[in-house]
């Protein structure tokens, strides 16, 4: 158990160190980096990705993935925008985000689980469908200059904390409790380790999978509420980069791409490191063209080191493939 805990802490400590070191380098390179305003900017830029990354952590943990998360955010954002235009109370519009995301998560879950299509293929297909949906719903023009009611809600403070900080803390707290202290967490990781074995152990595999997709959808919808509040705008390309950024941050955070191991804190650090690098590189005068190169190299470095140290559970691929074959044989 202690070794297990140590392993978990390793990656998070490494990422925290990464944040601190790059933060120091950037402060030396730019006098404007370590200012309250700029740190607040980094935090604000991280909001949506923190929420989407949380859902993605569960999905990767269960051995799934969803590459359509950005479009789910987009569709939810259009819903929120239309409601705001119709003059609905901002608080209700903000709630509409997670509700719409929840529904779309249900759609994704049905296609993946009941359609028996591998998650990456199914969500790639859904990505195309949702993108077309966004185009049709926007009708070629964008929602811009939305009523500022929702934006004003961002400034509301609870116990001195901005509402975004509170919501993110609550979301991470709730998922943490669910994963650590309820059977859901054990089921999730068991399925991620081996779906076949989990099924043999009597775990409700489908139920757990549906839950993971629906939670992820709701979190995308919640992110949409923050998106609309922050930018007051829904453009055609909304969220186009979010899925890949989320996968990068989650994997960076120590969640196994092959499932069976997750780290919520690692995801949070992964997101913050990504956003911090984007911000700091620009402030340090590095052309923005290089920014994806740096994050890409970082990802390769971390995963490469992991594979070399033998921590990446490559061996696990075989038994689960065997499980699939066995199941296919049984049917």
């Amino acid at each position, binding site marked *: 158990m202690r070794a297990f805990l140590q392993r978990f802490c390793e990656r998070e400590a490494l990422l925290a160190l990464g944040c601190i070191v790059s933060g120091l380098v950037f402060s030396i390179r*730019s006098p*404007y980096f370590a*200012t309250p*305003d*700029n740190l607040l*900017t980094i935090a604000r*830029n991280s909001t*949506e990705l923190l929420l989407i990354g949380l859902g993605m952590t569960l999905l990767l943990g269960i051995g799934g993935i969803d590459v359509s998360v950005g479009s789910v955010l987009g569709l939810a954002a259009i819903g929120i925008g239309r409601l705001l235009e119709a003059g609905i109370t901002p608080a209700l519009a903000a709630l509409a985000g997670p509700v719409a995301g929840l529904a779309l998560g249900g759609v994704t879950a049905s296609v993946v689980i009941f359609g028996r299509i591998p998650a990456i293929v199914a969500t790639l297909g859904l990505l195309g469908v949702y993108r077309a949906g966004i185009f049709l719903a926007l*009708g*070629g*023009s*964008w929602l*811009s*200059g*939305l009523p500022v009611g929702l934006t004003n809600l961002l400034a509301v403070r609870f116990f001195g904390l901005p509402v975004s900080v509170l919501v993110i803390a609550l979301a991470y707290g709730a998922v943490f409790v669910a994963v650590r202290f309820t059977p859901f967490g054990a089921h999730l990781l068991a399925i991620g380790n081996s779906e076949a074995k989990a099924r043999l152990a009597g775990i409700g595999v489908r139920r757990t999978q549906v839950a993971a997709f629906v939670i992820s959808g709701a979190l995308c919808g919640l992110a949409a509420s923050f*998106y609309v509040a*922050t*930018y*007051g*705008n829904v*453009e*055609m*390309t*909304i*969220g*186009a*980069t979010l899925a890949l950024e989320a996968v990068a941050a989650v994997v960076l955070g120590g969640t196994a791409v092959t499932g069976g191991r997750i780290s919520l804190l690692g995801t949070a650090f992964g997101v913050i490191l990504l956003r911090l690098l*984007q*911000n700091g590189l*620009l*402030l340090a*005068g590095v*052309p*923005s*063209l290089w920014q994806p190169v740096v994050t890409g190299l970082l990802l390769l470095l971390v995963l490469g080191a992991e594979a070399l140290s033998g921590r990446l559970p490559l061996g696990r691929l075989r038994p689960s493939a065997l499980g699939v074959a066995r199941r296919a044989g049984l049917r």
Partner: protein
Amino acid sequence: MHTHSKVALLTAALLAVSSTLALAADKKVAFVPQIIGIPYFDAMKAGGEEAAAKFGLDFIYQGPVDTNPVDQMQIVQNLIDQGVNAVAVSVLDASSIAPVVEAAKAKHVTLFTSDSDAPKSGRALYVAQATDEGLGNAIIDEMVRRVGEYAKIGIVSGEATASNLNAWIGFMQARAKAKYPKLKLLEPQYAGGTAQRAAQIATDLMTANPDLKGLIGVASTTCPGVGQAIETAGKIGKVIGTGYCSPNTARAYLKSGSFGYSVLWDPKELGYLTVWAGEQLIDGKEIPATTTPEGMNHPVTYDAQTGVLLLGEPAVFTAQNVDNYKF
């Protein structure tokens, strides 16, 4: 029985021919957009209808429901078969249009391009909205008018691979160098396709350059990001935002003051000029090098060498005039 149906067919054919003849008095000009149902092409359609009413023409507007080049060519082919006199196309795929141009010539239909060109296709002429140089110059001139020559300006572009955006940036830099040597244009930053990333970059540029006076959003997707970033940073009035974006996209930011102006062209005028050009082509009239078509309030230029009919200087949208435009 057989004879009867043959007679019926013949009668129908005769009727069809005679009805075409009866309508032949009305010249038919068609315009095929890249996609229907979006405000930009709706505006071109409105301009085309206005010109058709003015010059007594039949105007047909048909286009694909998504930006599919094969569907577009099919629609153009159908219009040729229907026997329109001239058809204008906002070309989706320049490499695939040449056979349709041939088919049009065989049926004595004049095919020309508008809004998006296929220079090597053999089209009769191209109705161009604005030149890259005109757009680059206009955005810099308007900026200098507002912030003066001693200013630092940031540039937020979209994809680094977009040739039109890079051409505009190139002309901005050339204009600044030639006319405003004291103006400092920062290296362009590339935000990709999302407003979110554009807002991040715009914010970071303002943080890194506290003396920044202006921010130019080159891709239309970067405009909302730039506008929102200026609002969130509380820099309205201190930093002037602008970009190449439609009045609908820029409206909120023009009104809040985060945008000083926006530069583009007026697609309604472009549609008007397209139908006017169609009539000149049908009548076989030569277009002079400079002329002001009836119903327009500024001259257009025609280069017989390249076959480009240019709408003219780009339009500048501001808080005052933005509500006159609906695209």
